[in-house]
């Protein structure tokens, strides 16, 4: 935040659209802004595929019944380039995912934030982890 003010002070303009809008497809066409969700569940499968990876989760609903959810994430290419494999995130890991549900009303959504059970944000790869 401090950086932002300092740069504004220099009076330098940079035409950068918000990056997320430049991805593979229009997310707001696939997912519903009026259906934010937060689910807690066990990872049953992680599809490291393109154009987007998908996390499969078993989620217990209010009645205690287990419901399968599919969550969309990012392209796995940068992860794989940096040595992350589908074993990096163990099957059975408990995840808390905040996102927006699919427009067709099924148990699919985009994973805005992927959190571990203790509340830490899940970073599948970052340069910091190389150190």
């Amino acid at each position, binding site marked *: 935040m401090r950086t932002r003010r300092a740069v504004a002070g220099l009076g330098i303009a940079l035409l950068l659209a918000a*990056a997320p809008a430049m991805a593979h497809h229009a997310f707001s066409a696939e997912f519903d802004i009026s259906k934010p969700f937060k689910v807690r569940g066990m990872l049953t499968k992680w599809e490291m595929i393109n154009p987007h990876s998908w996390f499969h989760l078993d989620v217990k609903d209010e009645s205690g019944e287990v419901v399968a959810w599919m969550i969309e994430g*990012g392209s796995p290419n940068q992860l794989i380039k940096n040595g992350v494999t589908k074993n990096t995130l163990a099957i059975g890991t408990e995840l808390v995912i905040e996102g927006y549900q699919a427009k067709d009303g099924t148990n699919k959504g985009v*994973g*805005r*934030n992927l959190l571990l059970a203790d509340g830490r944000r899940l970073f599948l*790869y970052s340069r910091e982890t190389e150190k």
Partner: protein
Amino acid sequence: MNHRILVLASALIGWSAIPLAGQARPKPYTAPRTPDGQPDLQGFWTNATYTPLERPKNVGKEFYTLEEAREIMKKAAVDEAEQTEPGTIPDVHYDFTQFGLDRSQGAMALNLRTSLIVDPPEGRLPPLSADGARRAAERTAARKSRGGPHDAVQNEPLGSRCILMDRNGPPMLGGAYNNTYQIMQAPGYVMILVEMLHDARIIPLDGRPQLPSNVRQWTGSSRGRWDGQTLVIETTNLTDKFAFMGASENMRLTERFTRLDEETLRYQFTVEDPSTWTRPWSAEVPWKKDKGPIFEHACHEGNYGLYNTLAGARAEEKRAAEEAAKKKPQK
């Protein structure tokens, strides 16, 4: 947040050691040679950049100072990693940083230029010709006549359908992520593997003519040759199914690849299309050495997003029809 700041700080430390594209060099670099004597351009490269294609209107110079360029990159990196406002359209997205997809987490050349366009000298696209403006209007009308953007799969953008994206080109322009290219050289050929959509451009260097003019392809017909240290690729035979920045199928593209040092490749291109722009225009992008391998971007195989988008549109239509039926007066 703390985590992201650490990531950014380490990325910026990395950038400070990068040689600058466009900076005066003490002595000319000679690229190593392949076994058959070509300048060796092989390896993995990235054209990731925060530099816009066109110069911002309130910037009146060709180059930033080193300090300004670093500040801009820092700001762009922070902006890219920043969370969006919950409940807004930009928030309907996954977080790039969680997948290492924000550009500052990967290799990127530091560019002092204020725009990728170097000609016209004001760094902006030349005006559209009358013909170019007419075709743009016709394209818009044709799109509208086909119905809404999600009425049929054919109405979806080429990128959503995994057919062509800006990384493929040609010309090859970077995007938000997956900006890696692998160049391989064999006697008589050069191959450029584009990470996004996993497109392999195989370009003959033996002086053969372009394909017959009735053969039209998404990425055209490309032929290469050496001009000293520089690989020159000329492309024609593009298709009217795709209009690069509004260009016609008669666009003629010249790309030039020059290795500036171990870590940097200079990518230049010139677009000539009198039926679209009132004059030719050129751009320059420094490509930075990257690491491989490139994971296959098998886009069709996992394109659940396309299905979900169309299914979402049908579900919305059904809801709307039900609402309308409820409002209808009973007979």
